[in-house]
């Protein structure tokens, strides 16, 4: 029978907190770049101009159908050879997850924009608005509200995917857990506590999403997935 002993893990819990901060930092960076990039990709994909719509569609489909770990390895090991830059684990992770999440966010944006009734476009045109104006002032403000649940769900998914950065030794929560396990020779406790921390943070966020969804349902607006 195995004897559980959490004292060594608790004594070194500072490592895990640093790791959690690392996880939050990379998630935040990816969100900050991924959201605007995703909007741009969605608008390009919906554009009537083929030379804009096609490349955007390709980028979205490519980054959605290749494994994020392959992308991360590509940016970490291959990109520095093609371009003369100093690659760090943080930079590789930031590039990978910004682009990867933007491909998924683009589809959320697109679904939201497409879900707005045609009449709204026609009304905008009737009062003399151009397409960009109608998009900015009429369509997007309505669409964004419907997209909120899908966005938050995607962001949670992003946070879970950021664990991959541990494989290129960026000090996120999972990497720190590994360090802790090697330092204390207590892998069971270290990885169990880490799993519980992830669960607490992510489950807490999921509960918030559900609350927001219920609130949006009360306000009588449908949401998109």
């Amino acid at each position, binding site marked *: 029978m195995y004897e559980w002993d959490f004292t060594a893990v608790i004594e070194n819990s500072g490592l895990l907190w640093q790791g959690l901060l690392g996880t939050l930092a990379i998630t935040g960076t990816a969100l900050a770049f991924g959201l605007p990039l995703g909007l741009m990709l969605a608008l390009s994909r919906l554009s009537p101009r083929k030379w804009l719509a096609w490349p955007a569609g390709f980028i979205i*489909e490519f980054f959605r159908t*290749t494994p994020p770990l392959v992308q991360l390895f590509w940016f970490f090991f*291959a990109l520095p*050879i093609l371009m003369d830059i100093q690659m760090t684990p943080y930079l590789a992770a930031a590039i990978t997850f910004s682009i990867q999440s933007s491909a998924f966010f683009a589809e959320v944006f697109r679904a939201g924009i497409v879900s707005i009734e045609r009449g709204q476009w026609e009304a905008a045109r009737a009062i003399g608005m151009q397409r960009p104006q109608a998009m900015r002032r009429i369509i997007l403000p309505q669409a964004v509200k419907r997209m909120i649940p899908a966005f938050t769900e995607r962001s949670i998914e992003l946070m879970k995917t950021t*664990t991959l950065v541990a*494989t290129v030794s960026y000090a996120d929560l*999972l990497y720190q857990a590994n360090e802790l396990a090697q330092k204390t020779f207590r892998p*069971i406790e*270290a*990885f169990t506590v880490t799993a519980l921390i992830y669960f607490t943070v992510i489950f807490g966020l999921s509960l918030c999403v559900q609350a927001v969804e219920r609130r949006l349902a009360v306000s009588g607006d449908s949401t998109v997935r």
Partner: protein
Amino acid sequence: MEYTWDFGSVWEYREALWVGLTNTLRIFVICLFAGLSLGLAMGLARYSVRRWLRWPAACFIEFFRNTPVLVQIFWFYFAFPILAPFEISALMAAALGITLNSAAFSAEIFRGGIQTIDPGQWEAGRAIGMRYREIMARIILPQAVRRMMPALTNRGIEIFKMTTLASAIAYADVLHQARLIASVNFNPIEAYTVVAIAFFVILYPIVRATYALERRLAKGD
């Protein structure tokens, strides 16, 4: 900077990549079948009238949905062997993590699919004297599975992408093999580009098929 692409060095090691691809397919098939079957069982348990079945199923689903799959794989690889009385290979640890994670996600798909079936179908089944099990197997599931097909195919695609995580614990999947080739030949660009393209070429036709399936179901239902 000018870079001369040289795919010849990858081509020379095509057998290593091929071995990796078969390993990727092996873990994919294991996780797909085990994950979907366990997912169905969990979905049914979660929908059960018996509380002692419903509660543990709900806990299992929420726990595995809300923790990253790589954490689960690491747990099974580094922590579980100390608790388990037997040896755990990288394949087993990765397959366990991915299977349990996929089971939790597909349980929700099964539950959702079963709940979309009209209650009248249950009543009709009961009216002609069928038991719960018979109604589920003969009436509800056949209709539900049809509606769940797009979501289940998406899960399958996700599982295929997830198998690359096994390379993090040195299981010799296609990504791990590419990493080996890159370190021997100093050609990470070509090695990883080939793997990325391989995944895209394998998965994109399936993604297109899912879109088509979704459209057809949307029309038919």
